[in-house]
């Protein structure tokens, strides 16, 4: 009996471990496995107070962001500047490994212990706004009109709910094209210009592909269905992905979407320009095994560090007709329901100011969201960065900006590329799952 009891307890412990869910690893973070906490000198309640002597007690804000060495270092320096400029506000920073971020944030939101200001994927804004876990930016600090006037629409539209802005963008990315100049030149193509249209792009991908004995030894293009890439080509083909009025995904019902996806997948499925079993795409591009890639402008900053010998060119995403439309993805700085409105909005305003955005672009390759910076001569002095900034001129908000939706999309693209199932069936499945996802109660 005792043994049975101990057995029950042991099994319960296993289930406990599972129900609590094993700690998610910190994938692709460089900030270490343990969250670091950097505290400024004052930690007080989140409300501005005035003591009996008339001296103001600084408002204390807590701030969480997912960690990476470059971001952590820069944010620490920015907070120092912010505190110098705003002596009435103190900010307590906490950097959390990316893999642990949602596991830490979600329980904090549920138990009303969330930080005052934090980062979330922009696709989460509507959900959290609906639950009342976050609140709109203080109008007296950042009015909706000024935001609409000053920011690129694709950068802030996803942060709006019920006509109000709930946050400011960060980690803003579009899709641009990158090519290996050496491989392109070897194939007798123009290594300085790059392909301009999708037809040219697909043609280049075929010309850059090499096989030996039926085995792929050089891939023309390492595309494998990354959501923002596919959303971009769908938009250019005039396909409808999401119906705002109906609040539903409609892509499986639109023949133009099918046409765009068939065009995107033909090089992989028919021309065999790439195979996921050949090499991981970005690893292959760094190794000089892949000729063309579509990807985020952040790679412009990343590649010189991770592949110093790689000589690469950068261009706008290929066009269908005149449209180089590119999908924008971003995270957002938002504030929790319990945050002091004015102080939190001032901090968010600072993080999205001209000066700070310029620094992010210069140091990390993130794109600026302020219209004024799109023509900034200093930023555009680097031709690669100039292309990335230019891409924002024809950009739109991505409709797959939560982890759950991305997971569904990735599954669908894996099936399209790696099985013989009809694309229509796969798209219908994915659409049904995504619409179910939208129905989840909050």
């Amino acid at each position, binding site marked *: 009996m005792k*043994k049975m009891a*101990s*057995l*029950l*307890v*042991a*099994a*319960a*412990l*296993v*289930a*406990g*471990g*599972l*129900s*609590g*869910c*094993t*700690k*998610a*690893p*910190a*994938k692709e973070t460089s900030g270490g*496995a343990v969250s670091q906490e950097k505290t400024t000198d004052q930690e007080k309640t989140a409300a501005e107070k005035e003591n009996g002597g008339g001296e103001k007690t600084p408002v204390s804000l807590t701030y969480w962001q997912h960690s990476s060495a470059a971001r952590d270092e820069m944010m620490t320096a920015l907070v120092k500047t912010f505190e110098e400029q705003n002596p009435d506000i103190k900010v307590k920073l906490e950097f959390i490994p990316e*893999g642990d971020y*949602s*596991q830490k944030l*979600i*329980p904090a*939101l*549920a138990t009303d212990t969330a930080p005052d200001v934090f980062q979330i994927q922009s696709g989460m804004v509507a*959900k*959290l706004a609906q*639950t*009342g*876990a976050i609140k709109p930016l203080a109008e007296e600090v950042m009015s909706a009109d000024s935001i609409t006037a000053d920011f690129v629409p694709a950068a802030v539209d996803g942060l709006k709910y019920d006509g109000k802005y709930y946050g400011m963008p960060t980690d803003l990315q579009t899709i641009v094209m990158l090519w290996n100049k050496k491989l392109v030149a070897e194939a007798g193509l123009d290594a300085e210009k790059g392909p301009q249209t999708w037809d040219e792009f697909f043609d280049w991908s075929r010309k850059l592909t090499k096989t030996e004995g039926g085995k792929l030894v050089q891939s023309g293009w390492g595309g494998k269905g990354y959501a923002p890439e596919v959303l971009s080509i769908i938009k250019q083909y005039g396909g409808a992905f999401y119906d705002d009025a109906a609040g539903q995904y409609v892509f499986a019902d639109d023949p133009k979407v099918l046409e765009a996806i068939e065009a995107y997948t033909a090089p992989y499925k028919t021309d065999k320009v790439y195979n*996921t*079993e*050949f*090499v*991981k795409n970005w*690893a*292959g591009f760094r*190794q000089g*095994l892949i000729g063309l890639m579509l990807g985020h402008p952040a790679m412009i900053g990343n590649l010189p560090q991770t592949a110093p010998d790689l000589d690469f060119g950068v261009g706008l995403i290929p066009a269908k007709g005149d449209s180089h439309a590119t999908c924008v993805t971003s995270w957002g700085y938002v504030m929790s329901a319990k945050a002091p409105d004015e102080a939190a909005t001032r901090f968010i305003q600072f993080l999205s100011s001209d000066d700070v955005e310029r620094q992010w672009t210069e140091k990390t390759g993130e794109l600026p969201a302020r219209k004024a910076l799109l023509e900034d001569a200093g930023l555009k002095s680097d031709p690669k960065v100039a292309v990335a900034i230019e891409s924002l001129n024809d950009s739109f908000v991505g409709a797959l900006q*939560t*982890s*759950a939706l991305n*997971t569904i999309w990735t*599954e669908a693209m*894996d*099936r399209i590329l*790696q*099985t013989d199932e009809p694309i229509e069936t796969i798209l219908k499945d994915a659409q049904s799952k995504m619409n179910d*996802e939208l129905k*989840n*109660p*909050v």
Partner: protein
Amino acid sequence: MKVSQGAVSRNRITMHRAVPYFFIAPAVIYIFFVTLIPAIMALPISFTDWSALSPKKNFVGFDNYVRLMGDKDFWKSCLVMAQFFIYVPIVLAAGLVTALLLNLKIKGVKLFRLIFYSPVITSTIAAAILFEYFFQPSFGLFNSILGFFGLKGLGWVENASTAVLSVIIFKVWKDFGEAMLIYLAGLQDVPSEIKEASAIDGASSWQTFRYITFPMLRPAHIYLLMKNVIGVFMIFQETYMLKGPLNSTRTVVNYIYEKGFQSYQMGYASAMSFSLFLIVLIITMVQYKATKLDVL
């Protein structure tokens, strides 16, 4: 006041019996509050539609469990998890063979013990990143080895049919050191007199191992079997890092994580957790009966 010698002796015995409980108390208290209580609390959550994004919870009765029955993705993840049971005999065999080798009186044996045990204490994440490179089809270590022997390279993690095998290879490498350590401890407990007696009776090395050493390691076998079987139910980090295409490595725990922390369906994720708990319970009971467990 005079205290009888009998009372003092009784007190000593009581203290003597109580001491071990003081030692295990911190661990038990920790497990009780951090694991057991949350596990029990997951049961009522499994009867709600709680999203974890707000305090709002609606009672939905057995809806989550009914949904689970028809959820193809859940059952597929169960099948994926089932494939990982192949790992259990492999890791036990690898541990046993290594322990037997390191039980020999050879030079540098302590260094080898340290080397073979080191994967156990290495971070799963760091090791998985390293193995990601080893598994790279074009320039990875494993395909280079296959190529050296004139064999065709595999897609490893990138191929749905070899992805589970890849994770098993990684997991065996990561865990066999622990089995080795337990077996080494077990081997120290096998009385040398019995082995010497069998040698005098003319038993070969294989016969000594087969009929004396192996049976006498029974407590180690049972402990490692149970631990690793339960470990298979908890595979998460390995398959989170070494993710195969077409959900070929998505285990039940990965699926629970997706539903709980990506889709914010904490009620449904809790229902899956509890269902898994029942499966673990049944399998553990079967194991208990089958092995007539006397080592717990």
